[in-house]
């Protein structure tokens, strides 16, 4: 067996190397303890990097879905309010028609009531042109311009803008106003007929509009029901999205987050080892036989 001579230089070099290695471990342990993350760079867990990236991509997509959801919610809320207002206005028109069709009122009073009916017409046009952040809710995809002209002519597009709120579900960010308000019964045409009949002071003509106005009310109630249904779907999608977010965060945490107790215990151990290495280095300066001579 041959012995290896341990020189003063190699002893110091070894001590310096050990101290340096423990110092690097200490820096790493401090980083983990301070950040709470056990994966800070790809080399920390190369085999998990793909999974981590995929989870982060899914999280980003869910964040986008959440933003879309908020946009859709705002549009749906305004659509619901507007349709509620239109429904109330049509109910007023219905009452007016019923009242003016009776013989309680004379022709002059009917002509005067025409002004009231025209105001209801204008109010409905105004409500049908509801906007959120400059977007007309009932203009279909052509939401950057007015949905209805002042005479009730539809100026939007005959389709519906949507945004994805989950991998499977798109939520509306507006509606085709011609479908909602002019589908089975043309709300504006009905109101226009009522105005014309009142202006003519013709009780029979006014009476003839009552059923149409009732149909218009039903149409708007049906439209509001559709919006309500969309809102329910939106809430369901939101719940699903939140559950997915929670699950993704959990999976990501398992892969990337450090266990606090474990990381602090490790930090303490490495710190102790580092201090010991420094002490050994300091005390080894005079530890040779010359110092005993």
């Amino acid at each position, binding site marked *: 067996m041959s012995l290896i001579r341990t*020189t003063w230089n190699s002893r110091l070099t*070894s001590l310096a*190397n050990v101290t340096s290695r423990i110092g690097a471990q200490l820096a790493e342990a401090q980083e983990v303890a301070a950040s709470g993350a056990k994966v800070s760079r790809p080399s920390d867990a190369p085999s998990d990097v793909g999974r981590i990236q*995929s989870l982060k991509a899914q999280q980003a997509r869910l964040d986008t879905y959440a933003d879309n959801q908020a946009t859709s919610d705002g549009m749906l809320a305004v659509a619901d309010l507007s349709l509620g207002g239109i429904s109330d206005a049509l109910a007023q028109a219905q009452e007016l028609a019923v009242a003016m069709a009776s013989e309680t009122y004379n022709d002059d009073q009917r002509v005067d009531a025409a002004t009231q009916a025209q105001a209801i017409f204008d109010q409905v046009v105004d409500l049908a042109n509801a906007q959120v952040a400059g977007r007309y809710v009932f203009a*279909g995809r052509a939401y*950057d311009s007015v949905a209805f002209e002042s005479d009730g002519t539809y100026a939007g597009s005959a389709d519906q803008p949507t945004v994805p709120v989950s991998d499977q579900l798109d939520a509306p960010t507006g509606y085709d106003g011609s479908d909602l308000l002019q589908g089975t019964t043309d709300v504006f045409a009905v109101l226009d007929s009522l105005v014309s009949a009142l202006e003519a002071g013709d009780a029979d003509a006014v009476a003839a509009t009552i059923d149409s106005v009732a149909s218009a009310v039903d149409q708007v109630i049906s439209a509001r029901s559709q919006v309500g249904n969309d809102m329910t779907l939106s809430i369901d999608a939101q719940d699903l999205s939140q559950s997915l977010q929670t699950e993704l965060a959990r999976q990501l945490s398992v892969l990337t987050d450090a266990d606090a107790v474990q990381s602090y215990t490790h930090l303490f151990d490495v710190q102790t080892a580092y201090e010991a290495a420094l002490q050994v280095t300091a005390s080894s300066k005079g530890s040779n*036989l010359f110092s005993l001579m």
Partner: protein
Amino acid sequence: MAEVSTLADDIGVKAVFGADGTATVMVGGHAAVSGTHARTLSVERGSDGLPAVKLAADSGTIDVTNDLGGKLGGRMDAASTVSGVLDDLDTFVSTFADEMNGVHQAGYDRNGDPGGDLFTYDTSSAAQSFKVDPSVLDDGKLLALAGASTAYAGDGDNLQSMIDVEESDLFDGGNRNGTEQISAIYSTVGQALSSAETDSAVHQAQAEDLQVLRDSISGVALDQEATDLMTWQAAYQASARVVSVADEMLGELMDLVR
């Protein structure tokens, strides 16, 4: 000796010592220094854009790039790995940009006109030069998000087609989508870094062992020197004592003769 050590540190040369104590310094099996003869090492830009290290030979040069070790060899390895990753990134970017441009051109902008390019890049360095087309940046209306020439503000049919590109298996021969491909590149970098860290730790330990072995031969062990000093001191004192006794004996003998 120190110069050979420095060369080994820097470029990973190996030295073969002759009986007369002279060293032949080898680079990857080629003698760079032999006796009083030395060959020149030079650096040139290789066809792949990476530096190539050449050793002068009797006729021309010998490429010793792949034979290098030490710090320079490590850096050359790193450069080669990084170059591979950059190539992957360039391919990723050009494939993605071409696909997106194709989809963008199939849509219509807010003016109702067909879309142009959405991204531009320089084919020689796609990842570095990749950017949104300046004309689109200047005028957002040129974004061809609509699926029809009516180009309503809410027509996002082509936008959806562009979003769908993310899920298209465009990479790795149709086996990976964009996210999977970039994750694979990321993973490759992580793996290379992790391997390099492991290699570095192993080589560091080997270097330390070799340093100890070398020092055990050529270095000064103070404890051994002290022990030797004490031995020689004792021997010297013993010799001095012998001389002293002999001197005394001679003195006694001289006295007897008198």
